[in-house]
């Protein structure tokens, strides 16, 4: 039996995949009735409030909780020692088991959780937290990622890799170092190539610490029940939360249930494990449900995007071909590793950029410092890298007197050529993405750079990313006796539209309308394993698992029809199959599918024949105005193009492109966490400026190039991060094009622009 004969919408020729289906949960979202953990409360629930460290690095001498414990409405006040008394090894983390549920022995950053109050209402908990007093023996802190390499200050006495990742095993037990991971890649002979090069360029670029600030602040609720524990949590990785909590408690996974409704934004902030360990331990100690809702301010103390320093050295021959590139990248991981070591390694694969370079050397270091922990944020390190290599591409082209687009065309990788890791490029529309931006920005036409105090400039930048491999997704498709279908996956729809796109895959495969497919939200009691919703992996990985599950369901329905004695060539609805087989509206068909792509671990030189199942590509072109009297930059036009294979839902993809570009626009123009003695001083929307509706470029265009991803479900691959890649370097390049100054540190604030303009004019501003 074929798909066609299963189709109960005979004559419906419109494919489900590739259709602009409105998000399935649209009505809930516009009426304010979508479920978020934020909304949840259960009887007998205690509200948790965290007492946080006020010093960046220190030994805990004492914590006095007596007054807080006596406060009205307070049930428990717990410290790290109370947790350790019940759970002997209370450390967690995806890459390293380095983060205590509550601080133990030492505090390592300002804002680190030191104690928690559990009270009847959130106000009582907040009041009682003020009554806790902690004494510390202050230790010298280290903040800078480059200083941390050689500093005598050591954040962790001993490294504790989790063992989940085989390539971190060699770090086990290493002492007296802040280097949590040293990734390296060697290809060809850089030294010889630099000696032979016609020109050699060396630069350093820096990226600032920023925060994801999902508008739904992190929130988790743990509900104990006899020998089980249910955690309702705003998480991007319910399967990981279950595994890690089970490990922490020494329980089998099936005694931990993790449920995730809608997510009010994630962007990497809600990945792996965040508040879940604390609410789980607190709920088991208190034998009561415990809910912890962070404030917007507290999010800044929980996870950040890596600040980074990238030293890049490039050799170029007389024709402008890049012959060698050495990359040294230092990632400021903060006090706990979170997923920083993976960011360091996985982004390291593509640190030299989407260029065909014979000789490459990459050293990428994850550093512990006394800052809030850093993790993944929309790009897994790639935007920090593209910022550097594309800024340098413009600098090189300018020095060589070449058109920056020509310089890129000459050097870009082509399909069939090996990338720095040795993996052969395939299904990568790098040139098409570049040419789309070139064409839409009308690069060949003359450009008016202005003459008065306001000057104009333009630039283009392109970047690419390897997927986070190897990772697994599993899906279950259930067809009910009336023919309606449900999809069970643990992929989290945090706004990117995965529920809708996955339902489209089911609908296309079963031949039913997408709107009739129900997507069951992650509930680890019923939805199967998914590694996590991160790194633009869901479309490809979960998408393939979903397609297989739907195909399996279709085949099982066919077998059922055969059992019912229905001729194979007949055309009928699934409901009819069930009726024929069971004599009434009865029965269920369940199809399952799982997917893990082929992956080969890199060797000691970082070489691998298969380092990623697919490449994500994005380019940005901008036109802007610079006010030379104020340093103010106004981006008047932005063009973004991506290769996302064949889009499953073009309208949602376009919104992903513009959304990613605008987010990176904020990281480029205004966003920066400021610190004073380790304390974040602008942890509020009053002082930390994210883009508002007035800030977006007046002209914004998004383009999806014609492409098919081999091995992707219906030719698709992920897109959530691709439009972040080119934003920062294209803006910095356009500023240089306009006023001749080059900025190498993000963000590109008016003050930095004006200082650079005045310095170049020999009339520097006073400090």
């Amino acid at each position, binding site marked *: 039996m074929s798909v066609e004969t299963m189709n109960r919408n005979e004559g419906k020729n419109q494919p489900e995949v590739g259709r*602009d289906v*409105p*998000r399935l*949960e*649209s*009505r*809930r*979202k*516009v*009426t*304010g*009735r*979508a479920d*978020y953990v*934020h*909304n949840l409360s259960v009887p007998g629930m205690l509200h948790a409030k965290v007492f946080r460290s006020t010093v960046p690095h220190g030994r805990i001498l004492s914590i006095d909780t007596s007054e807080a414990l006596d406060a009205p409405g307070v049930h428990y006040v717990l410290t790290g020692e109370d947790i350790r008394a019940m759970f002997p090894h209370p450390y967690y983390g995806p890459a390293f088991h380095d983060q205590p549920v509550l601080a133990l022995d030492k505090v390592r950053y300002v804002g680190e959780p030191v104690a928690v109050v559990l009270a009847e209402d959130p*106000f009582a908990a907040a009041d009682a937290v003020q009554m806790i007093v902690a004494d510390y023996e202050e230790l010298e802190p280290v903040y800078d990622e480059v200083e941390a390499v050689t500093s005598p200050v050591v954040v962790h006495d001993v490294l504790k890799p989790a063992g989940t990742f085989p390539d971190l095993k060699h770090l086990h037990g290493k002492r007296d170092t802040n280097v949590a991971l040293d990734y390296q890649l060697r290809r060809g002979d850089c030294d010889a190539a630099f000696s032979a090069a016609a020109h050699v360029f060396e630069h350093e670029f820096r990226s600032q610490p920023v925060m*994801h*600030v*999902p*508008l*739904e*602040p992190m929130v988790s609720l743990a509900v104990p029940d006899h020998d089980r524990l249910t955690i309702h949590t705003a998480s991007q990785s319910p399967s990981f939360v279950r595994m890690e909590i089970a490990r922490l408690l020494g329980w089998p996974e099936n005694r931990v249930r993790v449920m995730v409704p*809608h*997510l*009010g*934004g*994630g*962007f990497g902030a809600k990945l792996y494990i965040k508040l879940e360990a604390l609410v789980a331990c607190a709920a088991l100690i208190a034998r009561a449900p415990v809910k912890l809702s962070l*404030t*917007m301010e507290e999010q800044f103390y929980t996870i950040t995007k890596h600040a980074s320093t990238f030293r890049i050295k490039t050799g170029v021959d007389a024709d402008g071909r890049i012959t060698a590139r050495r990359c040294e990248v230092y990632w400021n991981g903060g006090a706990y590793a979170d997923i920083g070591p993976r960011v360091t390694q996985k982004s390291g694969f593509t640190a030299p950029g989407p260029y065909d370079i014979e000789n490459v050397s990459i050293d990428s270091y994850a550093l512990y410092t006394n800052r809030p922990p850093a993790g993944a944020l929309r790009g897994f390190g790639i935007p920090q890298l593209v910022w550097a290599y594309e800024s340098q591409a413009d600098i090189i082209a300018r020095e060589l007197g070449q058109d920056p687009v020509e310089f890129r065309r000459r050097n870009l990788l082509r399909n069939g050529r090996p990338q720095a890791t040795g993996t052969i490029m395939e299904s990568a529309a790098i040139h098409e993405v570049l040419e789309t931006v070139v064409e839409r920005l009308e690069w060949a036409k003359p450009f008016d750079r202005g003459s008065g105090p306001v000057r104009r400039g333009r630039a283009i930048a392109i970047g690419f990313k390897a997927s986070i491999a190897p990772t697994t997704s599993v899906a279950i498709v259930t067809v009910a006796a009336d023919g309606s279908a449900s999809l069970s996956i643990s992929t989290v729809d*945090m*706004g*990117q*539209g995965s529920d809708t796109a996955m339902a489209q895959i089911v609908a296309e495969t079963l031949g039913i309308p997408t709107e009739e497919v129900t997507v069951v939200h992650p509930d680890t009691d019923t939805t199967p394993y998914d590694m996590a919703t991160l790194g633009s992996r869901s479309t490809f990985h979960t998408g393939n698992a979903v397609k297989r599950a739907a195909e399996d369901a279709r085949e099982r329905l066919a077998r059922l029809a055969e059992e019912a004695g229905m001729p194979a060539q007949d055309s009928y609805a699934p409901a009819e199959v069930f009726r024929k087989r069971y004599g009434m509206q009865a029965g269920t068909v369940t199809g399952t599918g799982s997917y893990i792509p082929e992956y080969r671990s890199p060797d000691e030189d970082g070489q691998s024949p298969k380092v990623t199942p697919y490449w994500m590509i994005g380019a940005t072109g901008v036109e802007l105005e610079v006010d030379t009297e104020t340093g103010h930059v106004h981006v008047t036009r932005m063009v973004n193009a991506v290769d996302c294979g064949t889009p499953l839902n073009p*309208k*949602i993809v376009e*919104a992903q492109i*513009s*959304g990613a570009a*605008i*987010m990176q626009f904020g990281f480029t123009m205004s966003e920066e966490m400021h610190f004073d003695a380790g304390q974040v001083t602008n942890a*509020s*929307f*009053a002082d930390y400026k*994210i*883009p*508002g*509706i*007035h800030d*977006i470029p007046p002209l*914004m265009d998004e383009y999806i190039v014609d492409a098919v991803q081999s091995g992707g479900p219906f030719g698709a691959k992920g897109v959530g991060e691709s439009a972040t890649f080119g934003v920062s370097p294209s803006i910095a390049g356009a500023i240089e094009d306009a006023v001749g100054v080059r900025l190498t540190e993000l963000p590109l604030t008016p003050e930095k622009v004006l200082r650079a303009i005045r310095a170049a004019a020999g009339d520097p501003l006073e400090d």
Partner: protein
Amino acid sequence: MRQHISFNLNGRPVSMDVGAHEDAVDVLRRRNLFGARESCGQGLCGCCTIKVDGVPVSGCLTLGLKLDGAEVETVEGLEREGVLDIVQQAFIDAGAFQCGFCTPGFVMMASDLLARVEAPTDEQIKDHLAGNLCRCAAYPEIIAAVRAAAEKRSAHAQV
């Protein structure tokens, strides 16, 4: 300190005990209305936007006791007998949201704008929505949605 207050909530009279420390979002949550959400807690993001006596306010900065005697409107009140408001439908048609957490605030402010201005320009739309933040950055789609809602309404008015 707690006080008994009465007010009209989306057109229906309600009365309840409210603590002096509770804000309007707390009060609404106790009525099982979660559309107005506290996000920044400082009146800077617009996620908690409600209307009190016809005026949009930040629910997180409005004392619950201040609702006494007021006409209070929330996003849940826009839908009438199962039919979405013109702005809500326009948001769906334009795909003007991603995670949806900020959406009620934008919908409330957009519907407030349309109540005041017949055919708003893009600048007027941006000005009116300048107090609402969307981290998913669905701004281009939001502007398109409000424009479409205004056009649809004037088309209806002319029929």
